[in-house]
């Protein structure tokens, strides 16, 4: 058990979970295994990479400026690179310290608060800071993200000084906004979904919430401290101001990532390509078969219908913004994926072909049966079973190679502001899904995307959520991890292939061999929702 979180916090923090299933974003889980992260290029004994030392990233900004969103996104990316990162939301500590049902004192954020409030504030911050030290000093942590308002320059300076004493660098990230529309959109999205605002009209709720923030945090100083390392993000990434006193590799890398990040909410859909004529051959790059055509048609119809339903639901709820959510389609440059997008093209959607989205290269095992691979490359199969994520068959790519190759796509995925459908081979979907849902690298080769489901990733500010949209009326034989897929990873011996898809109509967990199944697999269409408690939460 993790020593970091006290029982008190666990009990009081409804969002804290030790272990998630692979259907739930694992960004807040604490990785137990010491495996390499998906795109990690190398490992070191200390667990720290790039000779970068330990860094505390400290967020700065009023509520509803997307701080939590930035923290979570950054943690996702850094972990994907293999940097051991954890987020410490000060709000979680406050909730754990202030008894349930009690509100925090009105003057909690005031500069001249009462002694009682100051003491409470100090107690909460101290607890959080102790946990950060523990993570960085005793758990090989490299980056701690300290997510709080930090409204005053004096407070920020003393934080920097305090961490410097422990030989820990600080990097402040401020999210600053003067575009009212962005702020209101943020409030609407993440702050007013609570029961407190149930019967309120959306704009009244936004106004009420914002007034509350401004009266509670009357003083906010934007960062001008030339002696501190900081990145100021203006209007959700329109402009970045970087004050570089002593940036290391990782800090510059963070700037790079932030240049591609925005705080608008948009969805990502994943769909498989249709079945092709010469399904076994990688080199042939064949066109869709008749069944493939049929699939493309049905998949398109289903997704468009789903989006239409959502739009109607939004209109009924009196929400706006659905018109600002157009859909773009990305495919690989391989024929099957491009042709699967045909009906989107006919419906006037923009299609973009991306060569990096090509499937995992099968190498010399192309077109070989599993038996033959076992016979000819017995030792490779053995190695593969030990580490299916990093192992490469002769001349082939490993999942790790694929992840590194997909990094530009990941950054462009973050950059994209409209809804996005990615049509690609299952191997590519595994890696992209692995990034968005913070999957453990070891689980990635075993993620399954049956053809009768479109995956929809819905971002929430605290975590991403995956849902599966069923495509009805598809012939059984094209649904599971289809015959066109090379047996890479080669399933462990004794497993009858093809394995049944996770999203099989019965909604059963796969009967895949028990020792491979990642723990906590959930039935596919069950949706886990973790309630957001942001209203009490001024920070």
């Amino acid at each position, binding site marked *: 058990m993790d020593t970091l979180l006290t029982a008190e916090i666990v009990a009081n923090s409804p969002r804290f979970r030790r272990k998630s299933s692979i259907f739930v974003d694992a960004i807040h889980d604490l990785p137990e295994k010491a495996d390499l992260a998906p795109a990690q*290029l*190398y*490992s*070191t004994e200390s667990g720290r990479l*790039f*000779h970068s030392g330990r860094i505390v990233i400290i967020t700065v900004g009023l509520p509803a400026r997307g701080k939590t969103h930035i923290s979570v996104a950054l943690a996702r990316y850094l972990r994907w690179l293999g940097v051991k990162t954890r987020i410490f939301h000060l709000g979680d500590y406050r909730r754990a310290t202030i008894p349930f049902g009690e509100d925090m004192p009105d003057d909690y954020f005031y500069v001249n608060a009462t002694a009682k409030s100051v003491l409470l504030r100090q107690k909460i911050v101290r607890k959080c800071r102790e946990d950060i030290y523990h993570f960085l000093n005793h758990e090989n942590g490299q980056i701690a993200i300290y997510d709080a308002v930090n409204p005053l320059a004096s407070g920020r300076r003393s934080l920097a000084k305090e961490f410097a004493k422990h030989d820990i660098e600080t990097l402040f990230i401020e999210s600053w906004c003067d575009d009212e529309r962005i702020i209101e959109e943020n409030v609407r999205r993440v702050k007013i979904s609570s029961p407190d605002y149930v019967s309120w009209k959306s704009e009244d709720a936004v106004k009420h919430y914002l007034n509350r923030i401004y009266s509670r945090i009357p003083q906010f100083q934007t960062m001008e401290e030339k002696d501190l390392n900081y990145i100021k993000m203006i209007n959700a*990434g*329109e*402009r*970045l*101001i*970087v*004050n*570089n*006193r002593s*940036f*290391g*590799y990782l800090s*510059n*890398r963070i*700037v*790079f990532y932030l*240049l*591609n990040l925005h705080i608008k909410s948009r969805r990502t859909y994943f769909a498989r390509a249709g079945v092709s004529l010469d399904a076994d051959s990688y080199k042939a790059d064949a*066109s869709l078969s008749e069944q493939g055509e049929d699939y493309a048609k049905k998949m398109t119809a289903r997704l468009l219908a789903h989006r239409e339903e959502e739009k109607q639901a939004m209109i009924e709820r009196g929400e706006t913004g659905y018109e600002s959510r157009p859909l773009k*389609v990305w*495919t690989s*440059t391989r*024929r099957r994926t*491009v*042709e699967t*997008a*045909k009906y989107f*093209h006919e419906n006037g959607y923009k*299609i*973009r*072909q*991306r*060569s*990096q989205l090509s499937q995992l290269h099968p190498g010399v095992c192309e077109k070989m049966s599993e038996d033959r691979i076992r016979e000819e490359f017995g030792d490779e199969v053995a*190695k593969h079973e030990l580490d299916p994520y990093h192992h*490469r068959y*002769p*001349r082939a790519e490993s999942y790790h*190679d694929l992840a*590194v190759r997909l990094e*530009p796509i990941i*950054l*462009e995925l973050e*950059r994209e502001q409209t809804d996005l459908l990615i049509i690609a081979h299952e191997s590519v979907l595994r890696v992209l899904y692995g990034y968005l849902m913070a999957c453990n690298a070891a689980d990635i080769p075993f993620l399954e995307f049956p053809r009768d489901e479109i995956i929809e990733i819905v971002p929430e500010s605290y975590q991403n959520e995956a849902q599966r949209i069923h495509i009805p009326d598809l012939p059984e034989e094209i649904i599971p991890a289809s015959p066109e897929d090379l047996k890479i990873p080669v399933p462990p011996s004794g497993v009858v292939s093809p394995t049944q898809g996770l999203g099989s109509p019965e909604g059963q967990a796969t009967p895949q061999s028990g020792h491979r199944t990642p723990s906590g697999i959930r039935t596919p269409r069950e949706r886990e929702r973790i309630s957001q408690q942001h209203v009490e939460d001024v920070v």
Partner: protein
Amino acid sequence: MPIANFGTQSDDSKICVVMVGLPARGKSLIAGKAMRYLGWVGIPARVFNVGSYRRFSTPQPQAGFFDPHNEEGERMRRAAAEAAMSDMLQWFNTGKGVVAILDATNSTKDRRRWIYEKCTEAGIEALFVESICDDEDLIMTNIKEVKTTSPDYKGQDPEVAALDFRNRIRNYEKVYETIDDDEKSYTYVKLINVGSTVIINQIKDYLSSRLVYYIQNIHIKPRSIWLSRHGESEFNLTGRIGGDSNISERGEAYARALPELMRKSGIPDNTKIVIWTSTLRRTIQSARHLKAETGYETLEWKALDELDSGVCDGLTYEQIAEKYPEDFAARDEDKYNYRYRGGESYRDVVIRLEPIIMELERSENVIIVTHQAVLRCIYAYFMNVPQEQSPWMEVPLHTLIKLTPRAYGTEEQRFKADIPAVSTWRGKGTSAKHQEFPAEGKKEDTETKN
């Protein structure tokens, strides 16, 4: 059947990087480096230097030429800018170009608007990169650098040249307009005092963000980078590749000679140097005496480890040719992309070296003690060696290479330790043996080239 004809196929947007800044602000250095970096990662890039167009008509102009009131000068500079722009657009039209770098002062809003409109018309994104500097020492260092290396002052008295150059800068200062809020709809990066403050505005695509990331890492302070392979290893003696063997006796002699060799190569007074090695024994051992004698800080990088030769690790080339004949041939055919079974290709090494390159750009004086393949990749980055050549380059043992970045290219010097060692070089398509590098390709000791 042809591939479906819908959907855009080009992955990258076309970008024109427009340098902005007074003379001696490191613009050419940034432009040259950005081009090399892009080429190294496989993105076709080219610099269009307006000054070199202007030099056709006025090879060595006086400062007065740059006076904004000098109509003739103004007209000719405008013509040079137009010629550069038209060549650039032509280059994009060939379909091969992805990033063009327009290297000039581009010091007025008018000029920038003209460039912006020209680019937009042609479907090219303009990314303005302004370098601002008010650190007088730094500017003076840059002036000295330029006056000795710029073609404008070739063969002139350095003192006269420096004076003329200061006057030239004053003429530019008269009309210089920094990028401000009038231009807030442009994509731009403003680097203030060598990147201590950076303002990044309206980045619209991934490639621009990646370029900005790179530019943020570079600095324009003068420095040198020393490269050395490890001393001869026990594996080298038996012709085996890879492994983690100790250095041989002769390798140890090289390790002992390295501090003196460094001194001989010329280290400016009060220079702090950092030693980088891989995590393998032979590089750590090779740097041991240098570290002990000088007290330089040492960093071990996993990313500097030798190209992983997979199943071939620990074999000789002869054994590889025998056991894996097809692989042996395939490697000769395309050595850059060839990946050893279970190991790495040169392309893989370049990917894992990117963090090293970024860190190297951020650092000042560094000596890197590493391995043949890794050194070839790093060398290729600094010296702009094309991908198909870099894996075949000769980098002999017991030789120290000193690279000094200059505004108009990287200067290279080689210093031999005069300690014999085996050759570990093998020519393309030759038998499976290490051999001597052909004499005509050999570099003279301490040869300097631009």
